[in-house]
């Protein structure tokens, strides 16, 4: 594969679409090409991440280890898809094992070079963060679809009035103490001024336990951040109800629809009484598409939340697979 071929290939990768040719040349220079034979393991679940891989040709399968030493295939990946970015971004081990199912060519990008793509406050970094958010949202939907299929049955949905206008009748309240918010791991690394900008861009409400804030299958109209309390994300199929995540302090929910315009993949129901920061759609879009320090904080927060949610959603997958 010549440098020209590599650049032409990179131009077709959705995650990198729109990048200047000079950018792609720079990228091609630091990437390493590898051919991996059928049956080889690229990495095992839990291994430390050192690089991301762009699949040039061939195919791989991703699998999850479950109790009793069994392995369950969760998905497949092929040309122009990216592998290993979750573990590289959150610093934890790989979420799944990856096995090559037919001889595959990959381009490897090391940890530091990948981090450099996302660093700084320039348009290409912002664009890449937004694309990653879309990619992770698509992955999350795929994982949830997999889980829903395992549960069987149709989405139970909720009556329209129960899903209702979530914001209107919730009690408005004052913002929380900023010292408390800064102690949350989610916001540790943020510049205080930018964090303040983010925290003052929405409104605060109190929500009683049991209240449905987002209904599965209907578009969410806002981004929600739990400040106090907990909101559970659930899938309901027939008489089976499975919690796929719990949004405790510093965790967000309801934003998938705002990223990709599709209905919410899960319902969000307050498990505890909760104090929430709500950003209506227009405020969300403003922050998501702006390119300043506050938007950077916001995109970072979304990325961390999506990564944590992707990991959290794999846990019921593993439990369900273990019980089969």
């Amino acid at each position, binding site marked *: 594969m010549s440098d020209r071929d590599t650049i032409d290939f990179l131009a077709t990768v959705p995650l990198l679409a729109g990048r200047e040719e000079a950018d792609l040349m720079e990228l091609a220079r630091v990437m390493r090409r590898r051919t991996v034979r059928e049956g080889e393991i690229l990495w095992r679940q*839990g291994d430390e991440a050192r690089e991301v891989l762009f699949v040039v040709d061939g195919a791989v399968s991703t699998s999850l280890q*479950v109790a009793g030493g069994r392995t369950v295939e969760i998905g497949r990946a092929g040309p122009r898809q990216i592998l290993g970015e979750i573990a590289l971004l959150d610093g934890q081990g790989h979420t799944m094992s990856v096995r090559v199912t037919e001889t595959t060519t990959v381009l490897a990008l090391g940890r530091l070079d990948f981090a450099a793509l996302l660093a700084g406050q320039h348009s290409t970094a912002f664009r890449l963060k937004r694309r990653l958010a879309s990619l992770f949202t698509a992955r999350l939907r795929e994982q949830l679809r997999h889980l829903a299929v395992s549960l069987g049955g149709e989405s139970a949905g909720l009556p329209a009035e129960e899903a209702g206008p979530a914001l209107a009748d919730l009690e408005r309240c004052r913002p929380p103490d900023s010292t408390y918010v800064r102690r949350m*791991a989610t916001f540790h690394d943020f510049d205080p001024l930018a964090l303040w900008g983010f925290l003052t861009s929405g409104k605060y409400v109190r929500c009683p336990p049991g209240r449905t804030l987002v209904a599965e299958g209907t578009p969410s109209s806002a981004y929600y951040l739990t400040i106090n309390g907990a909101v559970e994300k659930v899938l309901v199929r027939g008489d089976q109800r499975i919690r796929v995540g719990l949004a405790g302090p510093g965790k967000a929910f309801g934003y998938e629809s705002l990223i990709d315009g599709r209905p919410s993949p899960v319902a969000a129901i307050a*498990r505890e009484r909760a104090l929430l920061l709500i950003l209506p759609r227009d405020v969300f879009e403003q922050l998501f598409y702006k390119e300043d320090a506050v938007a950077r904080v916001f995109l970072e927060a979304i990325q961390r939340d999506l990564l944590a949610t992707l990991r959290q959603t794999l846990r019921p997958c593993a*439990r369900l697979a*273990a019980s089969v």
Partner: protein
Amino acid sequence: MCRILAYLGEPLPVQTPLFDTDNSLVRQSYSPRMMNTFLNLAGFGMEAWDPTSLRPEDPFTYRATTLPSFDRNLRFIASKLAPTCLVAHVRGVTYSGTALVADTNLHPFHFVGTRVVLAHNGHLRQFPRMRYSLVEHVEPALAQRIEGTTDSEWIYALILSQLDDPYGLPETRELADATANTLRILRSVRAAHGIDTSSPANICVSTGRALVATRFSFDYGWYPPEDEMLETDLPFVSLWYAIGGEYSMRDGDWRMTAGDPPRSVIIASEPLTTDSSSWLEVPEYSMLTAELVPGGIEFEARDLDV
């Protein structure tokens, strides 16, 4: 904040979960992976049931306020015991002058003559305010036996008091109901005192034949101002399990082997190995029950709505 470990199944050398694995319980006392702001240096305790021992219905008991990693007696004993049921605990307390490190505060709690033991990972915030309102829910004879200063010992006395016979061997279902009822009592007493801040209650109770474990918190996500435990309590307190045939070393790794029906289960605050791929996270607000039956164990996980 403590770490707990419970095991039920095929005879398992105690040395394995306490010392051998790369995230063993003793290692979690000084280097917990899932609680990086807090250490568990306030003592160790265990109850182990060995069917081949004298009076097999009585567990072997060991407790010491010394650091378990330097406790030679514990190492010697652990290398000789292979129980079918084990409950062990390393205790963590806040780094303050008011914390009391004492033998009477060590878990698992076990009143002499009773068949149930308890270990707790969590803490009831503002417990001194509600402590004496619990008296009316505890059998007087059991209340008199509370020796320590912990909330956990009161939880233990409450659970025993919910049993038809606090000195008998309860069925697994009765033990599970007693645990859930205890959480309901605690919720109502907290409400009566206006206590509404996060209070984790990961509880493990056992009879040697059965285990009941909860992953639960009252008012999760609400904290008092300037709370010194905030960073520890912001994530929901962890609990994991591994279920299968037997826990053994294969190809250099400690793992639960396949087993259908299952014959062994380990429940622990953290996976006992840094590779957690064969462990499952216990869902928040849920209860696990496991019971020894002919041919294996019966295991159930259910939502805990109290």
